[in-house]
């Protein structure tokens, strides 16, 4: 019992400290700029592209898509950055060297990003309603919340892979931006996935976000949860696979970095 309590305390303290450090709470402006203002501009930009090229209906399509894509900020950027910062400050070897199980450290660092990602989607959906007139009157809210959780889960799971890679790859900024690009292009965020050439569609199908987003769009229009269960199931299944891959990779990267003493090499 004591051990469980200790683990939970470790997770909580890790969650809180890393989150504070990540967003430079000594400079709260940085948090507001990165978490509220920047996503709003990015969101609006993509919706206007859709509005110009494809008309108001597709603009609303892109508004919902981009509301969900905002999850990638917390899940990918947040997770990768939590270890990158340790690396830059030269403290990564101390974190890895402590007797605390690294999985707990990792879970702790992921925890706040779950809340962060949920905040991002809800903020995005509010933008979509207020500024782009997305109609939630007939939305199936229970199903919609379920779809949001499924997307947050799969995106965070995907993020674990890149967080693990961040332990050994020098230029993680490049990695993050490349992953963002995947979501912009392949996941049906700004246009239906059917617009992509045939040979590119499987990429979107294998990525997180695609299925959850399809389900969410149907649920906003009032679909029954049972009619999108297959899409939600796929989203969670894809998330589960990425989570296993990510955690496996994390353990492997940690042991490789210890063995080769390559943890702090730039």
């Amino acid at each position, binding site marked *: 019992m004591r051990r469980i309590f200790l683990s939970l305390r470790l997770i909580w303290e890790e969650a809180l400290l890393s989150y504070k450090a990540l967003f430079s709470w000594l400079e709260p402006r940085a948090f507001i700029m990165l978490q509220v203002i920047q996503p709003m501009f990015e969101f*609006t930009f993509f919706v206007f592209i859709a509005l110009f090229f494809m008309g108001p209906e*597709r603009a609303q399509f892109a508004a919902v898509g981009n509301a969900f894509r905002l999850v990638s900020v917390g899940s990918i950027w947040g997770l990768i950055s939590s270890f990158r910062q340790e690396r830059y400050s030269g403290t990564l070897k101390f974190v890895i060297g402590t007797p605390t199980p690294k999985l707990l450290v990792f879970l702790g660092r992921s925890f706040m990003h779950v809340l962060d990602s949920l905040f991002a989607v809800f903020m995005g959906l509010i933008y979509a309603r207020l500024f782009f007139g997305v109609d939630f009157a007939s939305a199936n809210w229970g199903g919609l919340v379920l779809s949001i959780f499924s997307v947050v889960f799969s995106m965070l799971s995907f993020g674990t892979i890149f967080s693990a890679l961040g332990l050994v790859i020098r230029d993680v900024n490049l990695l993050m931006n490349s992953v963002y690009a995947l979501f912009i292009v392949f996941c049906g965020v700004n246009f239906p996935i059917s617009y992509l050439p045939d040979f590119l569609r499987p990429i979107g199908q294998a990525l997180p976000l695609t299925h959850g987003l399809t389900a969410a769009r149907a649920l906003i229009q009032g679909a029954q949860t049972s009619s999108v269960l297959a899409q939600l199931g796929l989203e969670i299944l894809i998330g589960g696979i990425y989570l296993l891959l990510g955690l496996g990779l994390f353990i492997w990267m940690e042991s490789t970095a210890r063995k080769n003493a390559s943890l702090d090499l730039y």
Partner: protein
Amino acid sequence: MNFLRILTKEAWFQITCNTLPRQMYLFSLLFVPLIYSFVSFIMFQHSGQASFLSYVVLGSGMMGMWSSIVFSSSADIVRERENRSLELLMATPTPFWLIMGGRLCTNSLLGLLSLGVALLIVRVFLGQPLYFQSPGLFLLALIATVYTFASLSLLISTLFALSRVARVLQNLIEFPLFLLCGMLFPAEILPSFLRPLSWSLAPTWALEAMREAMTGGTGGFWFHILLTVALASFYLWLSALFFAKIERSVRISGTLGSI
């Protein structure tokens, strides 16, 4: 003569140390136009408007250009600050604005590669015919665009020099400019309360001039070029003013290198 020597040296330093050897810079320069030209091309295919192709090409090219300029401008200052060399640069007899100006002019010129990437993708990989109604005027608009981006980035670099969160600012100013300048759509479709902001940005007019030169346009080319050059010159004057103020202020307070 000394002025040119400094500019050349800074340009060479920028090319060999600060830009091309950095993967993230190359990503902004080459990969950003690739992503946006592809995404906007897919949407363009469903627009049914052949004339929108100029938005795809010029917009995605300019986005890569701006992205790489902002990335490099902020990263240069952050790097100098982290290496504790920002104070030394400021203390050299060469004016700080000239050092930054040399680097930012180089960034703007290198940024033209983004436009090249966008043209290449649309013409070769996406198989679209590209026509330039007035190649001479297009070249002139391109020169005005480089001048615009160099002066705007010089103005913004004063913010980077003062701020300890330059990397955050870098992320923050990228998309507002994409949005307000109407990089991938005409700025007229923005809500009316945003339009004055859009009009105050020289790249809005530079893009208009380039589109006019590419598509034949409605005859507003010279007016747009005039606005572009006037606004860019105003940014340059503001930058000189701010740099002088910053130099004086940080010499008194001694806080330039604070992280």
